[in-house]
């Protein structure tokens, strides 16, 4: 903004201010109503939902699935999405720091004197994109589940197989429904439609590395192995 535009804005603002209403009581009334509403919402949430206190902190756990508070879910999902180890520091400190710096220097990047959101398309579109991205990451982070639980609904006869799959670590590399990791293995949500039962059994016994072999599982408990194969081939 050059000096002329600044002066023009100040003159315009002076006119607006002259047309304005006194702070007390008009603005104070609006602020007060909103403040009361905020307080009512906080108290209502405290009474209706309460403050849960989970089990005591236990560093020796082998079953707990750590998750942050909901307002950090977008950063949490960013950490899940950035998989190459060499880029980990980008996801942890790099990207958030860059975004923060951009946010701070925003008034110096955006020199357009225009304020109407409909007349500054770049700013408005960027804002909407950022909000949509954060909302998407937050939702994805919220539904990310434990790698030893499968939440997909299956017919009763496949439930034992589903339990075997969940406790065998498949979700560590595969996605089944909403659960699991998106790599290094392909998603198994529709594997029953892609591969016949024999092919699934063969892959489990003789897989392509780095997938581990489940031949020991077949030796130890053929019943569980068959349940697993049946469950996987039911995924269509």
């Amino acid at each position, binding site marked *: 903004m050059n000096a002329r535009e600044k002066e023009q804005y100040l003159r315009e603002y002076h006119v607006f201010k002259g047309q304005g209403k006194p702070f007390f009581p008009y603005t104070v009334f609006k602020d007060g109503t909103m403040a009361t509403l905020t307080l009512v919402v906080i108290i209502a949430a405290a009474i209706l939902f309460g403050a849960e206190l989970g089990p005591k902190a236990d560093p020796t*756990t082998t079953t707990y699935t750590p998750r942050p508070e909901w307002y950090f879910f977008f950063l949490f999902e960013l*950490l899940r999405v950035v*998989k190459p*180890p*060499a880029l*980990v520091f980008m996801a942890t400190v790099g990207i958030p720091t860059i975004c923060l710096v951009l946010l701070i220097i925003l008034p110096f990047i955006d020199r357009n004197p225009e304020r109407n959101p409909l007349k500054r398309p770049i700013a408005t579109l960027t804002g909407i994109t950022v909000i949509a991205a954060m909302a998407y990451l937050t939702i994805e982070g919220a539904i990310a589940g434990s790698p030893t639980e499968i939440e997909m609904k299956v017919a009763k006869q496949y439930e034992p197989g589903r339990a075997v799959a969940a*406790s065998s670590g498949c979700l*560590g*590399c595969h996605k089944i429904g909403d659960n699991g*990791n998106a790599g290094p293995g392909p998603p198994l949500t529709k594997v029953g439609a892609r591969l016949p039962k024999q092919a699934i059994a063969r892959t489990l016994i003789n897989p392509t590395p780095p997938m581990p072999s489940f031949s020991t599982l077949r030796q130890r408990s053929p019943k569980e192995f068959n349940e697993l194969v049946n469950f996987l081939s039911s995924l269509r």
Partner: protein
Amino acid sequence: MGAYDGETVTRRRLFTGGALAAGGIATTAFALPAVGFALGPLFERTEPRMFQDVGPVGDFNPQSYVPKVITIDASVGEAGKSTVYVRKRDPSRDTDHLHQPYIAISNRCMHLGCPVRYVQASERFICPCHGGVYQFDGKVAGGPPVRPLDRFETRVVKGRVQVGPRFSLDSHLHRFKVRDPSNHVDGLWQYIYPSRPTT
């Protein structure tokens, strides 16, 4: 400028300099101890942990890991404990140069420190947080972890297995001084994430 010819320091300049110096000294006097207090722990040497008993030799086998609880910091009660996965060395599978009689693997994920769980069916360590997966010997199988799982020193004393201080490994399973989870140690990375006085 001064009271007589050639004098350069006026009364005003003297007092201005004096006020600034006195203010600086006063500020330093109460800020330095506070800063030192806050930063002190960064430079303290932590005592090396002693060896702890985790069970008789018969508890452990070469095919699967047994979780045991050890104490990392005794002053915080339950919050100072951790789980270690112990296995007897299998000469046919363990080709590393560490030559430990028993392999004790830490449950701390090398991405950001979440507790990993061992899954026997697939012989993998799986992290519940961000998708990290490790192989049977602790090396990374997939996901964002930056190096293999840390191990603990082990020894056998009078038929009982003992677990000692923790150390870190690079991707070829060479021993390094212990680091924080997200710190790489391969190649040049060990200088970007140096070991600190506290470790």
